């Protein structure tokens, strides 16, 4: 069974909890496992970018480091703001 790392983000543990529930159910039906990133932190999106750009990227970098250490080849970030923060950071790190 194929699996992915899973980055829920703060919203999916709060007001977006319905999204998480339906997403996890869907992935079960599809036959994929989602392994929640161990000890993930805030992705550093919007509110963070508005205060401290550098910290926004280092927050995301910590999450990418955790994913790397857990040997997740790919990480699912269902929240679009989290996805963008992680993707942007990955892009900057790779450059």
């Amino acid at each position: 069974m194929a699996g992915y790392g899973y980055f829920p983000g703060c919203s999916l543990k709060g007001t977006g909890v319905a999204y998480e529930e339906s997403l996890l159910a869907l992935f079960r039906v599809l036959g994929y496992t989602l392994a929640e990133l161990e000890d993930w932190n805030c992705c550093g999106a919007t509110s963070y970018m508005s205060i401290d750009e550098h910290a926004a990227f280092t927050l995301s970098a910590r999450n990418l480091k955790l994913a790397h250490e857990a040997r997740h080849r790919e990480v699912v970030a269902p929240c679009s703001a989290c996805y963008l923060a992680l993707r942007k950071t990955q892009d900057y790190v790779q450059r």
Partner: protein
Amino acid sequence: MDRKLKLQPEAAPDWARQVSERPGCEGVFSCLQCGACSGTCPLSIYMDFSPRRIIALVREGFRKDALSSKTIWLCASCYSCAVHCPRQIHITDVMYSLKREAIQYRMYPARFPIPVLAQEFYKMVRRSGRSSETWLVLRMALRSNPLILLGMIRTGWEMLRAGRLSLERERIRDLESLPRVFGGREAA
């Protein structure tokens, strides 16, 4: 006859140049003022200046008007403007850059909750590594305009009943890694 814009004496062309040199803001002087950004922006109807006008204010150097606008705080970072801009201007990044400057010089509109939310969010994540939405919204309201809580009571109660408000105070286990993430930087 000499005609002057009302705001012209306040214009700071140096500031406009400075902004245009920041990462992500490079394109501002290539703006055509076509208004595609304002047309596609889902929040522009609530803004005091449309995104197109913010770009116009920036490049004419009207610093105070741009930094104290509500617009930059209403931007929800959907990036629709950046996608539609025919000159590929990173308008969302320009908004972020203006927000950071407005926070730094305390020029955001008084009693406006969104910049307060951003600062409370910053503090919360700095302390615990994650944000806890319910507590964050409470702090935002108490530190900007507590009266907005009255309007939230009904929705809040229903969300609580539906299990959509978590009262959990989220935090990461490895709190010691946070100072490294922030590189010993001073709190804003």
